[in-house]
């Protein structure tokens, strides 16, 4: 799948979640642009959310957590305190602190991967989905 298609799918998922959140939190909003440090914000809860569509995890069994893509990125730069990994079949909510805890406590080793449309390799943690579930929490 191309990067633009991935981006469009990711955008769609963010729009869907924004709509759901608007049912309860009228002030919720979505950010735009490639350098956004979070995807959705819920001012009523003082919560910022990062949404990661990871449809490939159904095949690989791993959730990808990026931290460097030509520059610090992902978990190192996101301002979102709450992350949502959505596989298509499942939504996994996890706090940023718990992502960091999971990486450290489980002693995960980073790897370099390069998507077909990536100009640069990126450094990521590939985390088995059952481990991510263990550190997950309920939706905000």
């Amino acid at each position, binding site marked *: 799948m191309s990067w633009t298609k991935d981006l469009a799918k990711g955008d769609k998922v963010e729009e869907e979640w924004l709509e759901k959140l608007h049912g309860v939190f009228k002030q919720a909003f979505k950010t735009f642009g490639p350098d956004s440090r979070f995807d959705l914000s819920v001012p009523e809860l003082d919560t910022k959310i990062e949404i990661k569509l990871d449809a490939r995890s159904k095949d690989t069994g791993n959730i990808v957590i990026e*931290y*460097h893509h*030509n*520059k*610090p990125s992902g978990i*190192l*730069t996101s301002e979102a305190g709450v992350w949502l990994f959505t596989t298509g079949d499942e939504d996994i909510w996890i706090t940023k*602190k718990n992502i*960091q*805890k999971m*990486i*450290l*406590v489980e002693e995960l*080793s*980073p*790897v*370099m991967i390069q998507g077909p449309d990536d100009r640069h390799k990126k*450094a990521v943690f590939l985390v088995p989905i059952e481990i991510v579930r263990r550190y997950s929490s309920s939706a905000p």
Partner: protein
Amino acid sequence: MAQIHSFSHLHKICESAAKKTNYPLVLKELRRQVPRDWMPIAESTVLFFLPRAILDLPTKQARRAALDSIPNNTPVTNVRQFIEDGITSLWEKDRELDKGSSKGRQG
């Protein structure tokens, strides 16, 4: 300066450099061992090794000094908070393990 054969090699260098614990010394050690084009990723990767290295220091004062050595103008913002959160997570995990092993000894 070492040539980087693989990402796991860089990973090992970062793990070893983190043991310097004083942030400027950690970077100095990375610069000594890592070719310039690998430095940005090494600086990001070492952040995942610093919490354990700092937690393993023998005294509270040494841990405090290591945290105080982190400047505010790092490429990643809030590095100090990131490291402190990591130390807390590892400390809690270590405490759980200690409790588990002392229960095991009692039982």
